[in-house]
């Protein structure tokens, strides 16, 4: 048996060597195999042989080259192209066949990649992402639901790189939900509506800035559009789609659709900016079915230049977080030893990690956990990952439509000393549960790690990167393709459906009952 193996290995040598010494090499192997038996010597023999192969094989092949060079000198005739071959014998038919199959395979692979590879632009994505830095991080902040977090949000908004706004439906839900009304012209004051950034690119109430809107390319006033403006927006949208949209084929199709609709004059009657934006959004979504893609109209002037995240803004944010105990409204143990944690945002981990860890530590001995996210307006993905880490005993992938797969997409499980990884978990949701909080809900639901109790969530996936078209129009375009292992759809627009559908106000009571029942069964 082993001789056969070695005979096969010998075939790795060039034919001239095999011809001259193949038999003898095999004989040598036989001799050694005969003499070197036993537990120690047999493995040593094989080690020797493999080391020998590794060192002598390259040498044998390398030696073919000097011969080639030597041969070339003699044969080179004037002006006649010549070919040099490594061996002077004809290749075996088997080798020819194998070579043919391999080249055919390579050819097919290349052409398949050329036609279908357009969907993936990893290089482009990474280079485009690099300058975003901290700014993107904060744009993902969404709505921290905190007055002072507004400063951060505002800068993210102003950067023109903010995540896409929510749809009008979600906006209405928000305002109906009674959190806060967007306050017109109040871009700097505290206490501004948290809903405002959710509605970032929705029409806002007139702002003082509107007064000096003379820079407007469009000349749009109180929502009247002319043909030139429409044409400008459409062609800019097409250019942006082609340049940034994650799937080039789809981008091409959407661009064609926009052009076709414009040519048919379907857009001509629209003079209202908001309606026009909706119309174009619909035209694009009819093709792509991509809820993250949106063209929006803002009555207020969109900021011209992206602004950097300032240290001052971050300091204000930090201060606000300390003041509000990192939006941890309540941490307590309910009856039946059920841990309860009301978290109103997923704040920046660099500020709030220790607070979050302390909270989880106080609940470590609970028999079940209730996360109250009914007033949670979102936050940072890495805080979502941190909280989720306590619910698993192994790293688990967390899907986030905003980001490509990164190290941060995984939970940091197991957390040392953590006893919560196998405890039943309930998440309370409401229509005001938003953005990052929905990511938490969605992932825990898909991973079957938690029971969602309450209302369908807000539906803010915010996954597009905002591109300014002019003073009033902009587009949220998904540029990265995050891997969603659970399903094709995320919670954009639709929200996350709870497992137990009850009114938000009743959610805690219901969840506590379910948890208690489950604990009794044990």
């Amino acid at each position, binding site marked *: 048996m082993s001789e056969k193996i070695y005979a096969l290995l010998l075939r790795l040598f060039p034919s001239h060597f095999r011809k001259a010494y193949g038999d003898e090499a095999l004989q040598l192997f036989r*001799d050694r195999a005969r003499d070197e038996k036993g537990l120690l010597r047999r493995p040593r023999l094989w080690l020797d042989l493999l080391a020998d192969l590794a060192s002598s094989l390259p040498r044998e092949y390398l*030696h073919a080259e000097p011969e080639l060079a030597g041969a070339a000198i003699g044969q080179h005739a004037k002006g006649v192209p010549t070919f040099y071959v490594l061996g002077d014998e004809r290749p075996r038919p088997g080798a020819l066949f194998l070579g043919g199959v391999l080249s055919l395979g390579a050819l097919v692979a290349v052409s398949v990649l050329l036609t279908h590879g357009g969907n993936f632009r990893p290089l482009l994505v990474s280079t485009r992402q690099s300058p975003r830095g901290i700014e993107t991080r904060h744009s993902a902040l969404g709505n921290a639901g905190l007055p002072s977090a507004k400063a951060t949000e505002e800068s993210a908004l102003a950067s023109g790189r903010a995540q896409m706004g929510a749809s009008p439906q979600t906006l209405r839900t928000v305002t109906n939900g009674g959190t806060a009304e967007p306050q017109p012209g109040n871009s700097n004051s505290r206490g501004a509506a948290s809903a405002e950034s959710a509605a970032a690119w929705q029409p806002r109430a007139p702002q003082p800035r509107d007064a000096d809107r003379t820079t407007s390319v469009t000349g749009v006033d109180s929502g009247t559009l002319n043909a030139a403006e429409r044409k400008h927006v459409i062609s800019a949208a097409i250019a942006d789609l082609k340049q940034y949209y994650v799937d080039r084929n789809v981008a091409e199709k959407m661009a064609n659709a926009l052009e076709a609709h414009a040519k048919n004059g379907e857009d001509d009657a629209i003079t209202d900016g908001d309606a026009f934006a909706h119309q174009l959004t619909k035209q694009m979504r009819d093709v792509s079915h991509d809820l993250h893609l949106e063209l929006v109209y803002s009555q207020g002037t969109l900021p011209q230049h992206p602004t950097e995240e300032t240290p001052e803004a971050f300091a204000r944010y930090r201060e606000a977080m300390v003041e509000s105990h990192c939006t941890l409204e309540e941490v307590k143990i309910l009856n039946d030893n059920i841990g309860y944690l009301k978290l109103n945002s997923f704040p920046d981990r660099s500020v709030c990690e220790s607070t979050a860890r302390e909270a989880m530590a106080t609940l470590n001995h609970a028999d079940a956990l209730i996360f109250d996210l009914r007033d949670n307006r979102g936050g940072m993905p890495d805080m979502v990952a941190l909280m989720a880490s306590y619910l698993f005993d192994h790293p688990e992938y967390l899907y986030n439509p905003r980001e490509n797969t990164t190290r941060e997409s995984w939970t940091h499980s197991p957390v040392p000393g953590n006893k919560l990884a196998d405890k039943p978990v309930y998440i309370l949701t409401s229509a005001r549960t938003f953005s990052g909080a929905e990511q938490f809900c969605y992932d825990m639901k898909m991973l079957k790690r938690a029971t969602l109790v309450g209302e369908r969530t807000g539906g803010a996936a915010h996954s597009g990167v905002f591109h300014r078209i002019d003073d009033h129009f902009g587009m949220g375009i998904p540029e990265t393709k995050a891997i969603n292992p659970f399903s094709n759809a995320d919670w954009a627009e639709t929200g996350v459906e709870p497992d137990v559908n009850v009114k938000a106000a009743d959610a805690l009571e219901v969840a506590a009952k379910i948890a208690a029942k489950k604990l009794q069964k044990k």
Partner: protein
Amino acid sequence: MPKRKLDPLPSAAFQILLSLAGDDLHGYGIMRQVEEQTDGRMRLGPGTLYSSIQTLLEAKLIEEIDQREDTGLGHERRRYYRLTSAGRKLARAEADRLADLLRVARAKKILRGDYV
């Protein structure tokens, strides 16, 4: 066949020359002899052994002599190799070179004691 470089002389080739300094040997004999004269440190595998032999043959440092049976190893016919006078000369030159090296090493006191 291509000329292979024997300058500097690879240690495997040198050991083969040395192993043939006494008797004519076949491949396996050479391998055993080399193993013995290096206290088991160098065990030539078939690839190294025969490519070295090939090189040495081409350089006419060793020669092949008629096949014959090794009475100790069954009755298969084996190729035997013998050191040529050129091979002996080269081996001697290499040994001298190493001896020179050894002298230098000793002068620099990197050898413990002077047992060599």
